[in-house]
């Protein structure tokens, strides 16, 4: 699952990105601050946090819907944030696609499924003639388990799961390298979540994709993510490989997130009641925090004092797991 070979190629690089919104007058609301991470080609990188923590905002910053107010984003080594040329913008669109959070809101209700899926093809003329376009649409529909006869239907005739698959088909047809999946299953019925997840995994393998998978629930992410970043109130507090994060969570917010999910892990389960993480319990004159690498590939948002506590905690976890083995 987790790939630890050394020559991993960075596909997306987010460097100290802030995203701020105007909220009346001169005031700015920082929805994301100092996001800093790399995503490697071929992995599924999950971004997990509760509602309103800035996950969508960050995903949309990558795809250039939200401008970054600070920092830079690189895709395949090229800067894609801020002012870029029209050609670069089009390259970004071709190579980075998004699956939207709300399948009920993300399809044009006045257009047929054929148009919805062909939209990107039209914009980039990715077909020789109409026949080829239709063939591509049929293939895309088939890939996501829908039928060619759905082409002439309208979105409101579909169930949530079917709509989400239309959303997936329309992203896939662009043959992107990188897909931002914004809580692709949270609006869906529990019974079809697995279906959509499996589909996404299947397509990832077939098409050699990289995912930025946004979720608000760690349990969903555990089985599909290679690495996980936990975001809290616009700040990424911990990044680690999926298994590491579940076994050795160090940041108190991560621990509280894990405690929200009933876990088979006894040490976490034992601590469960005691953990309610409120962010600003720490004193305001604490020294500034930043992302620090506590173990290779395991980053946590901390200052010097935090590091001492985190290190201690990590030691405990390590000895516990060693005992278990």
């Amino acid at each position, binding site marked *: 699952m987790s790939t630890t070979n050394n020559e991993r190629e960075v596909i997306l690089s987010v460097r100290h990105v802030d995203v701020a919104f105007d909220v009346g007058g001169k005031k700015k609301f920082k929805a994301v601050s100092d996001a800093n991470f790399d995503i490697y080609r071929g992995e599924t990188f999950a971004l997990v946090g509760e509602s309103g923590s800035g996950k969508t905002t960050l995903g949309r910053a990558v795809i250039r819907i939200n401008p970054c107010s600070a920092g830079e984003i690189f895709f395949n080594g090229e800067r894609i944030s801020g002012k870029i040329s029209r050609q670069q913008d089009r390259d970004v669109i071709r190579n980075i696609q998004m699956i939207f959070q709300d399948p009920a809101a*993300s399809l044009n209700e*006045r257009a047929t499924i054929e148009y919805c899926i062909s*939209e990107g093809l039209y914009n980039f003329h990715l077909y020789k003639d109409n026949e080829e376009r239709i063939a591509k649409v049929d293939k895309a529909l088939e890939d996501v*388990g*829908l039928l060619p006869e*759905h082409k002439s*239907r309208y979105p*409101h005739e579909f169930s949530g799961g079917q709509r989400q698959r239309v959303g997936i088909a329309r992203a896939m047809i*662009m043959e992107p390298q990188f897909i931002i999946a914004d809580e692709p299953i949270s609006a869906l019925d529990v019974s079809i979540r697995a279906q959509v997840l499996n589909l996404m995994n299947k397509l990832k393998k077939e098409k050699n994709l990289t995912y930025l998978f946004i979720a608000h629930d760690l349990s969903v992410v555990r089985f599909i993510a290679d690495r996980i970043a936990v975001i809290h109130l616009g700040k990424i507090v911990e990044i680690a490989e999926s298994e590491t994060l579940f076994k050795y969570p160090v940041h108190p917010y991560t621990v509280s997130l894990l405690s929200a999910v009933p876990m088979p892990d006894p040490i976490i389960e034992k601590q469960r009641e005691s953990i309610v993480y409120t962010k600003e319990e720490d004193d305001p004159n604490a020294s500034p925090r930043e992302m620090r690498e506590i173990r290779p590939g395991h980053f946590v948002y901390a200052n010097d004092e935090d590091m001492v506590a985190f290190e201690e905690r990590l030691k405990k976890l390590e000895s516990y797991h060693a005992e278990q083995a």
Partner: protein
Amino acid sequence: MNYFKKHMFDKYSLDRHFGKAPQEEPAQEENAAEINEDELFTFAEFDEKKSEVIAAPRYSYWKSVWKTFVSSKITIAVSILVIVVVAFAFIQPLISQFDPMKPKHPIEYEYHFLSPSWEHLFGTDGEGNEVFDVVWSGARNSLIVSLIATAIDMVIGIVIGAIWGFSKKMDKWMIEVYNVISNVPFLLLAMILAYVLRNKFDQFGEVGAFIPLIFTMTITEWVFVAYFIRTQVMIIRDREYNLASKCLGTSTWTMVTKNILPYLISVIMTYISRQVPALISYEVFLSYMGLGLDERHASLGRTISQYTSYMSGYPHLFWIPVLILALISISLYIVGQKLADAADPRTHR
């Protein structure tokens, strides 16, 4: 083959192996051990695709609009009324050849002020003209002017409003333009234009006479349409499906035509259904004030203004054109509203 190994050495298997009769019937599941593993995992035939088939008949937007529209008897009745009235306004003047410059019986007093009868449907006026002819010629011109003016207002307003709603840069200065234009005193502008433009377009024949009035009705009106559309566009501009289109590289213009305007059909219809009657009233009002069509052309407004002087002696002369005006305005408004309702897919079943 762990499964088999395990079972090979339990009592039941051993018994069997050595040819002993089993002491008790093995349970049903244990029997399964005998079936070879491949068979165990062949699924019952199940066509997954079948669950994706949509049984509902094909949905077509315009067909549904039509079905909803004709589903109400009142709507059909009013629509027929509108068609009859409009057709009548366009056909009757061709038959009567009424010309306000050529009164029918200017000095034959026996033809003046006749009461409505079968022979003279709406009676006659102070110049011996058939009121029936006068009213329908006037209605025709009022309709022509207001329909053309509405079309121009809507086209300019929608195009500019759609771009305005999308462009934050344009919004900054367009708001100022809107503030200025919407605060121009309309009557003053109408007066100036009426005097400046009068007879300037005579070389275009009959159409030329309508141009100044249409100009007056469009020079400022478009800005209100544009503002209305701008607000509507802003409301749905940032909806997720538009962000999705943006992420697929759709140009702003395609967004306007494919993503935004189709959603606005209903509100635009509502706007038109108010605009046409409003502009008919405008025409009447301007002509009443002497700022509308010149005296060579019949006009409901001028007819009403002329007939006001007969109010005491022959009140029907005043009321007939007023009622025709009301009939046209109200029926057009109702049909427009019903069309707007039908264009809203939430009313579709």
